[in-house]
């Protein structure tokens, strides 16, 4: 199960935060196919956000094929996002080692973040935010 943490001051739309955190959990293997996402009720009770925001996020995840709503049952993970960053993955270990070297070289957190981001931008296309259609017909299972 995943627990969402909403940062009101991040400047990122709340529903996008839920989408991102769900994807993050998928990448880290915290959520796996077949797992159930928390119900809208559970999310809003814990976060005090508007229920429609949660539903909008879940619709977006559904649109991307990551989750599916099962009528009367809830929203379930359909596929994973690869688990390259799992605890024991070699890439993660290399990154650990790299981070340690960066620290030894005298870089602080911001330096590392800047360096990492710049390499990230060189090697990977910058994601274009996907506009989300407001009115979409998807069935949304979300039992109370």
């Amino acid at each position: 199960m995943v627990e969402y943490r909403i940062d009101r001051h991040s400047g990122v739309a709340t529903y996008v935060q839920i989408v991102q955190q769900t994807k993050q959990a998928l990448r880290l293997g915290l959520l796996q196919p077949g797992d159930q996402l928390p119900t809208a009720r559970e999310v809003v009770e814990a976060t005090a956000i508007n229920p429609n925001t949660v539903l909008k996020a879940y619709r977006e995840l559904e649109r991307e094929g990551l989750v599916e709503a099962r009528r009367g049952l809830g929203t379930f993970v359909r596929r994973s996002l690869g688990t390259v960053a799992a605890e024991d993955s070699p890439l993660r270990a290399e990154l650990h080692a790299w981070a340690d070297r960066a620290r030894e070289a005298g870089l602080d957190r911001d330096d590392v973040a800047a360096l990492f981001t710049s390499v990230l931008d060189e090697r990977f296309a910058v994601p274009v935010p996907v506009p989300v259609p407001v009115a979409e017909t998807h069935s949304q299972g979300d039992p109370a």
Partner: protein
Amino acid sequence: MTDTPTDRPEGPADGRSDGRTEGPTDLRTDGPTEGPTDRRTDRPTDRPTDRPTAGRTEGPINRPTPAPAPVPAPALEATALGKRFGRRGRRALQDCTFHLPAGRVCAVVGHNGAGKSTLLALAAGLLAPSEGTVTVLGTTPAAARARVGYVAQDKPLYPQLSVAETLRMGADLNPGRWDEVTADRIVAAGDLDPRARIRSLSGGQRTRVALALALGKRPELLLLDEPMADLDPLARHQLMGTLMAQAAQYGTTIVMSSHVVAELEDSCDHLLLMGGGRVRLAGEIDELTAGHTRVAVTADTDLAPHTVVESRTTGRQLSALIRPAGPLPHEWRTGTPTLEELVLSYLRNPEAPGLAPVPDRAEEAAA
């Protein structure tokens, strides 16, 4: 004070007599009562809500934006609504026309004296309009009373009752609808001694009891006047979570007034901005923020034909909040305002032209 539990409450706390004829919060069910949980049967129309309801899910989620084609009975609808206190008194409310679709969580914001409380009291049926009409859940406020929960700003409760007695009163006054589990849970979350008398409670604790009463009624429409004002940040967050859970589970429409806009931004999806007794902005928050643009341009820029809500010149730069009348020039730096920026801009500029959509139906009604 004697310790005899009174069974005849004498009226609201601290004996206010502001014309309210009801007991504390509006708890009564006047009409015949329905089955305990099936609140959908008594709805005027089975309107499509975009939220799951208890124990089952709706079909397609189809949020009726931007054009809510077949308009179901709104939770709240006002047409040219006005209220004047006293024969030559100030008009607390005038010319209010808006409609709030069912299932929304609506923020009512505005200066002190903007008419927020008057509007809520009119919707609750505690005040009678001087002009115009207000329709609640498709009917009159009086007829809708059993389905409406109202918590007034001063959270009136019977001071001599204990917490447990207050909840029992809620159960007695709402036969067939009372949701004991919810009411008890709200009180229990505040660590209140059920035997404590209301008069011994702090303001925030009373708020908790008042909200427990209002939610225990399992209303279809919940009218909350400054519900969070007395609460500590933790209790605020927790009770707001409880309200949102209620909305998620039962599709409850919630209307709440507040001064703290930032706090409402994540919880509400609909806005009613009041000023000078009028509605200045009304609509879905997403649409309202999307309909406005923050621009930063050079000071000599002509902002026409766009509607300017607020503008400020600093040196060579002009910053403004506008409602674009069409596409903006590419060289303008633009951004979408947050709800708080939007509201503050309007509050700082009482003369800025409003944007309270006048629905067609209002025109018919006014004709």
